[in-house]
């Protein structure tokens, strides 16, 4: 592990050994990369949020047992992890972090962005969540409670953002465009129409 070895070459060395030992075949590697690059991602979580905004029975199931409700929508857990969905309201604003590493709801949001895995976010989301929210441009009133959820390998959190005002007449595709990845982490709100 010396700094002069370039990482690309190290990955290539390991890949060639695993291929040679028959522990994996090249198409399987491409398949995994394609899954994470193209099929998992916040577009899935967005559909869960829009359904919860428009279908009260689904929302109740989602808040009661998120793992099952998310599977019901066709998004399977990637690592057998359990999911919990926490609802933002005018009184309670939820934010998700993984202080130890990078645990993230892969089934609904895909892989986390670099900032989520970075030392400053991991450190400060726990100790100064309101300061972090301000950095993301999210003002929370002093009366509202901020709750921080620290994810781990077995249990992963997603935020159900508040449905923005003035969206009553919007269809599902229009609503979907308002649900950002960051709003499902809780660092921002859903976008206003």
């Amino acid at each position, binding site marked *: 592990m010396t700094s002069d070895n370039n990482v690309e070459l190290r990955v290539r*060395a390991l890949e060639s050994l695993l291929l040679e030992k028959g522990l994996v075949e090249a198409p399987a590697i491409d398949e995994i990369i394609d899954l994470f690059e193209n099929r998992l*991602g916040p577009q899935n979580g967005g559909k869960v949020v829009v359904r919860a905004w428009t279908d009260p029975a689904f929302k109740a199931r989602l808040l009661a047992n998120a793992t099952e409700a998310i599977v019901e929508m066709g998004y399977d857990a990637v690592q057998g992890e359990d999911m919990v969905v926490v609802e933002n309201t005018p009184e309670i604003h939820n934010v998700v972090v993984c202080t130890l590493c990078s645990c993230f709801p892969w089934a609904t949001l895909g892989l986390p*962005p670099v900032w989520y895995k970075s030392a400053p976010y991991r450190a400060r*989301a726990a100790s100064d969540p309101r300061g972090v929210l301000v950095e993301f441009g999210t003002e929370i009133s002093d009366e509202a409670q901020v709750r921080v959820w620290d994810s781990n390998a077995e249990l992963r959190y997603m935020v159900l953002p508040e449905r923005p005002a003035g969206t009553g007449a919007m269809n599902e595709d229009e609503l979907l465009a308002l649900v950002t990845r960051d709003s499902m982490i809780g660092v921002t709100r859903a976008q206003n129409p």
Partner: protein
Amino acid sequence: MNGIHDMGGVHGYGPIDREEDEPVFHHAWEGKALALARVGLAGGHFDLDEFRHAMERIAPVQYLSISYYERWLEGTLMMLDAKGVVSAEEFQTRLDELSKSSGGGA
């Protein structure tokens, strides 16, 4: 057990850097590093807890200086060595070979 990875509440890391329209992977090797770790997991060579613990045992200075998917790669290498799947020597030999054939620039 605390350690360098246990970052909740630690002071002094500064502001949060964000990138607009960030790609899932910034380099092709990052996707490969993730895929190879998942091959080790899916093949039953090590489990997720062992893998996380391996990454948490990366020396603190190195932990802070390498990128996220480099930690994945190093964690995978540590576990494959510990389980006798790919030894550290075997890996180093292959790395040296590749490094020579790619012009010795490593």
